[in-house]
């Protein structure tokens, strides 16, 4: 668990940090959870059809409806959740903070940034304007001054690594005081940076997450084999990489065979997402395929009904038990 007061080596700058992360309950989180509950369904993200996405967006208009589904998952025994840093997740985090007893065994896996809000802001304000908006948005004057002092050097030196750290901290603010297990770099950004080939961003992201939040960094990607090779080459050992892995090969770039080969041969911790390929694969077939692949110990899935959550969880557990 993170503890900024004791673990952060950020140095003197930390004295200026107005709103530090405080440690949550200390637990041993050396292993990743077997099942993580995903959040795409709550925010109108569906790769199968826009109609489905829209009907989900309508259904989950209110946070209470989302919380009901989260509670169903929690009561069924899934205590690990991945949340993208969508604006609406702030309300969910607030809910978790207000009910510490109810969620005493909660484990969160933030995935940041939520890229579409940046894309739209860049359209309206240009790239630097958007950076300023996000680094300073929602901050009091005092906090903003602290951020300017902390980021002063980076703004003067115009260094994108330092800007990246400021953006990470801005995105992480919504999770303050909550138990974080690992922090994911969202796939649009991971893959963009992978293409750019900036090693320092990856290594600095890993070390910043470790130093500031005391947990491991992880990566979402659509280019699993390429990313794993790259991370290993950067000296990031046994990286946590979450990618689409499914029976029909959907979103498995460059192709399904290369992804399966990487799973069998590369030293990394794979997490399977999009296992149903947005509904293209029947549940049982989908889970059997994943459980028969080597080295996968974690599955992320999202669902909207209690029945679906419990059925999927039971299928995963029994399939893994059989192995």
């Amino acid at each position, binding site marked *: 668990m993170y503890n900024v007061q004791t673990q952060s080596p950020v140095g003197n700058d930390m004295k200026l940090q107005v709103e530090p992360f405080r440690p949550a309950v200390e637990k041993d989180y050396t292993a990743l959870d077997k099942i993580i509950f995903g959040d795409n369904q709550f925010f109108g993200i569906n790769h199968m059809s826009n109609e489905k996405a829209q009907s989900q*967006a309508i259904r989950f208009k209110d946070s209470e409806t989302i919380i009901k589904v989260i509670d169903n998952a929690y009561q069924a025994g899934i205590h690990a959740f991945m949340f993208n840093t969508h604006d609406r997740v702030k309300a969910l985090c607030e809910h978790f903070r207000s009910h510490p007893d109810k969620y005493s065994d909660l484990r969160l896996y933030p995935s940041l940034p939520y890229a579409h809000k940046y894309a739209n802001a860049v359209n309206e304000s240009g*790239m630097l304007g958007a950076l300023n908006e996000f680094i300073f948005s929602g901050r009091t004057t005092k906090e903003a001054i602290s951020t300017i002092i902390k980021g002063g050097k980076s703004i003067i030196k*115009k260094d994108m690594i330092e800007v990246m750290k400021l953006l990470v901290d801005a995105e992480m603010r919504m999770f303050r005081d909550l138990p974080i297990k690992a922090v994911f770099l969202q796939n*649009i950004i991971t893959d963009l940076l992978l*293409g750019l080939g900036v090693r320092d961003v990856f290594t600095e992201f890993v070390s910043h997450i470790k130093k500031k939040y005391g947990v491991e960094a992880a990566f979402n990607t659509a*280019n699993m084999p*390429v990313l794993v090779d790259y991370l290993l080459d950067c000296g990031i050992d046994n990286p946590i990489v979450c990618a689409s892995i499914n029976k029909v090969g959907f979103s498995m770039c460059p192709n399904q065979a290369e992804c399966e080969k990487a799973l069998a041969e590369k030293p990394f911790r794979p997490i399977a997402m999009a296992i149903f390929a*947005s*509904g293209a694969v029947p549940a049982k077939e989908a889970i059997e395929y994943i459980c028969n692949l080597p080295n996968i110990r974690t599955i992320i899935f999202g669902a909207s009904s209690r029945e679906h959550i419990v059925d999927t969880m039971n299928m995963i557990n029994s399939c893994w038990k059989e192995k």
Partner: protein
Amino acid sequence: MLRGTIVGFGRMGITHYSILNRHPQVKFVAVCDSSGFVRYNAAKYLGVEAYDDYHKMFREVKPDFTIAAVPTAMHMDVVKTAILNDAHVFVEKPFTLNPVQGNELLNLIKGKDLIHQVGYVVRFSDVFRKVKEFMDRKVLGELYKFKLEMNGPTVLHGAKKSWRSNRNEGGGCLYDFASHGIDLINYLIGPPDTVVGTVFQRIFSKDVEDAVISTFIYKGGLCGNLSVNWSDSSYRKPDNCFEVLGKKGKIIADLRTLKVFFGQKPDIEGYTQGWNIKYFPSLAKPVRFFVRGFEFTRQLDYFIDCILNNKPSEICSFDDGLKTDTVIEQIRENGTRDIINKTN
């Protein structure tokens, strides 16, 4: 190994760089951008030369190809400079600000052994490639009606000062956003003979339109509606929805789903009489390297393939870009005769 450059290192320029930087036969040697922040970081982290003057960049670097991802008003000069320096060119959409500019560039490149492509990326989407195949095979019989809706959450506030809020620089919904939808109509149906009933709406912007409504009429009776709005906050990201009716059936397509209705049993494998629904996961084929969407990689790999195999672009050349610019001009002329409806 092809030596590449990018002019305009903003969101699209960076995306293109990321996708092609992983291409085994491409090496980027320089980028050009007006921002010092961008140049500093490109030079420091990407290991390329970073210029603020593309004329100088072309002179010094002599690239095999360039990608122009600058504001539309600059397309003319950047592309011209690239052609004069014998570089293959990929230019972002729309091609130019008006057909006069487009014609000049097309004349300039004619006779030169250069590959040219315009970045109408939707042409490379898995769903719309399938629709194009059906259109070419004329599976719906004689067409009589279509509509193209394009909506997105691109501008949701009073516009801040940028080129997107300046029509002379190619800003506004018509050039910057609706051009995708107009190009899709050109690609799937063909350019209209007449454009009527155009209305430009301002919703949040002060100086440019946020929505475009227009009617396309074709000789023979086919007609269709274009309805585009870049200020719709109910959308998570921009999307096109295309619906076309023919005497034998109907197609409804967006970036995720293809729905085809046939009145009679069609002679197409995997399709039957009545409704046929195909979802994205069954249509999408993986790409060499994924950034943002399959179609982004596919359009650039196609451009590079054309260069390597010395075959002209058949999917989205400057000729296609000019055709779309011409329709944009028709819409603009038609729209300026109507009342600009200001809703706030």
